[in-house]
């Protein structure tokens, strides 16, 4: 009898415990507090060659922060393939980090969830003021007219990376400045048996960055002034076609690139298999793949004609990483201190040097390290000829829908099917239909 009772008690206890532990996960979704002033959780995006490399860069800085403030920072470096899903899950469950990196193009989309702390004047004051940051970087921190959802941390821009040796062999003396020149140079390289330009054809994000810039050069935008998707205008169609035609018509991108989605085009370039690559801040990545700095040159991304600048002379998106604070953090003061630390002049120099990016903080940007060589091109692009991706709540859907449409067009080109204005328009019209109804 006693045994029965023990078993009964055991069964009931186990059931209750399971029920309790399962229900115990919830947390408040209200505003932040200062309940846990000694610790912070930080989700970093993968900026370096690997997760481990990033930990090596960040750990000493976080230890420095702990020494200064007594706040221990738990670091998790999250690969790009998981980051957005992790952030979404965190926003849904309220179980997230205190501070996190976000891709700057996600700013408006994540702002719409209301999960991130808005950077109003008071919060900006806590980190030294809004005017410490350059304007182009602040332009990618959320929808216009609203308080930014994050502050800029690393800035990046696209550039044309070219292999000096292959260029010299083909008798090319200076990097191409227009698309026509690029195609002509590509032909010269191909005539020598080389492969001209690399592309990440099956990676929707890369595709979207390129067609966005091409659209700018055609004087077109993917969204109307009031934020409605407009993917089928003549300018946009011509822009997308011009990009895909680099493979379909001009044939300076090898068909194999159509299935690249894991940065194979970067390894191709690093190994000398292709002569040119359009990439953002690739220097550190190329170095880690064994390509020394004297082997490649860096030039501005080509334009249709003339020189890079504003309007139709735009030749890059404003790429970069923003630092955000989860609204329901239980260490609000600590989180602000951490953001202040990470965006301080000294840390900006250290971190941006390690990741070969450009500091979005004016004082740090003036440092000699960022005004010479490859960095000068990137900095110049950011300052003069980079445009922010559309800061609309549907940006994430736009990247997926249009990026995937371009991927399918590349697949057509690779298979030898014709890519015409009509087929491009049809693909874009399908992408537009996938956008949320307004």
């Amino acid at each position, binding site marked *: 009898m006693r045994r029965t009772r023990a078993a009964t008690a055991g069964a009931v206890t186990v059931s209750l415990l399971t029920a309790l532990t399962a229900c115990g996960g919830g947390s408040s979704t209200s505003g932040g507090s200062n309940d846990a002033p000694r610790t912070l959780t930080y989700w970093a995006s993968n900026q370096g060659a690997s997760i481990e490399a990033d930990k090596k860069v960040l750990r000493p800085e976080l230890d420095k922060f702990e020494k200064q403030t007594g706040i221990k920072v738990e670091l998790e470096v999250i690969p790009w393939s998981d980051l957005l899903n992790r952030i*979404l899950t965190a926003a849904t469950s309220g179980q997230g980090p205190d501070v996190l990196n976000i891709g700057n193009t996600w700013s408006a989309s994540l702002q719409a969830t209301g999960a991130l702390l808005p950077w109003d004047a008071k919060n900006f004051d806590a980190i030294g003021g809004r005017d410490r940051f350059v304007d182009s970087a602040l332009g990618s921190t959320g929808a216009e007219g609203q308080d930014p959802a994050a502050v800029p941390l690393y800035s990046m821009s696209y550039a044309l990376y070219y292999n000096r040796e292959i260029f010299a062999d083909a008798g090319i003396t200076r990097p191409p400045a227009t698309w026509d020149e690029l195609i002509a140079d590509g032909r010269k390289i191909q005539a020598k048996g080389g492969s001209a330009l690399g592309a990440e054809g099956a990676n929707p994000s890369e595709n979207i960055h390129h067609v966005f810039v091409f659209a700018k050069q055609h004087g077109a935008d993917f969204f109307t002034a009031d934020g409605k998707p407009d993917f089928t205008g003549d300018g946009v169609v011509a822009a997308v076609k011009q990009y895909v035609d680099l493979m379909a018509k001009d044939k300076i991108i090898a068909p194999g690139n159509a299935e690249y989605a894991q940065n194979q085009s970067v390894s191709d370039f690093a190994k000398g298999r292709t002569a040119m690559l359009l990439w953002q801040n690739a220097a550190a990545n190329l170095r880690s793949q064994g390509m020394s700095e004297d082997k490649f040159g860096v030039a501005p991304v080509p334009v249709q004609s003339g020189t890079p600048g504003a309007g139709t002379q735009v030749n890059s998106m404003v790429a970069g990483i923003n630092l955000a604070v989860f609204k329901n953090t239980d260490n609000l003061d600590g989180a602000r201190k951490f953001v202040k630390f990470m965006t301080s002049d000294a840390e900006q120099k250290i971190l941006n040097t390690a990741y070969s990016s450009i500091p979005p903080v004016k004082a740090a940007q003036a440092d000699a390290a960022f005004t010479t060589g490859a960095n000068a091109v990137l900095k110049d692009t950011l300052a003069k000829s980079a445009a922010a991706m559309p800061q609309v709540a549907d940006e994430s859907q736009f990247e*997926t829908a249009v990026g995937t449409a371009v991927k399918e067009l590349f697949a057509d080109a690779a298979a030898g099917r014709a890519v015409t204005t009509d087929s491009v328009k049809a693909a874009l019209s399908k992408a537009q239909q996938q956008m949320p109804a307004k």
Partner: protein
Amino acid sequence: MTTTAPAEAAVAKRPSGAAGRSPRRRPGRIRRIGLPYLLLLPALVLELLVHLVPMVIGIAMSFKELTQFHIRDWGDAPWSGLDNYQVSVDFDAPVGEALLRSFFITVAFTLLSVGLCWLIGTAAALYLQDTFRGRGLLRALFLVPYALPVYAAVITWVFMFQHDNGLVNHVLHDQLGLTDKPSFWLIGDNSFVALLVVSVWKGWPFAFLIVMAGLQNIPKEQYEAAALDGAGMWQQIRRITLPSLRPVNQVLLLVLFLWTFNDFNTPYVLFGKSAPEAADLISVHIYQASFVTWNFGTGSAMSVLLLLFLLVVTGGYLLLTSRGRKPADV
């Protein structure tokens, strides 16, 4: 426990008089009958938590407008009635049309994959029925695809299917010269074939394993008697093996069907977040509808529709097969 054991033994040994037994009998019996249920309780609670609760929440989500504007506090997201379902089944509009297309691709893929898995698995099991040297080794070898972690196995296939330096093109194009130029397997129309190959490669060892186990239950005498009566191998398979395997096959096909129809890992690892149109399986399609476009309400509605479809198919299949079995059992 050691201290109470003798006391309990004493209680058990005490001669049970009728007078002493009757007042305690009923509660004791209830307890005895109730105990198994009570012991099942933890499992039941866990089952509710792990399976039913998420399902119910998923169904509730399908009636909500759960976009990025509401995910942070989705309890407060506005109810949208049947809107999500309307969007999903409006086959003239882009979302519904794409879902229907994805559904048909999945049906075709599942039928082919399950059919091939069963065929190859059964054939291999039959060939390995007779003892010969190296049979154990072959059996173990055949099970390798099933034992490998899905991610590792599929990523290997991704490398093999690569256009420029993949093994598949190297063999088909460079060595055998079967194609005019190297084919693309991971993008475009061929992606369906690539997906099917990986799915069959991964699934047939399970069919092989189950059929092999089923074959052990068929008495050898039946084959011997059939052989004496002059039945050839093909007739033996048709008249003895397949009818005897019927109950095994019924379960096997159902399980393979459900696994294949719902398979998420294979297409996801093979193609990433945006599958090529030709290989747009419904599981990845729903994932994309929810996670990539941040519309969890529509994604949930699609999931509920998928659940209903699978329920109907499974229910119908079980009904049909059990009806077929009864006369045979008599």
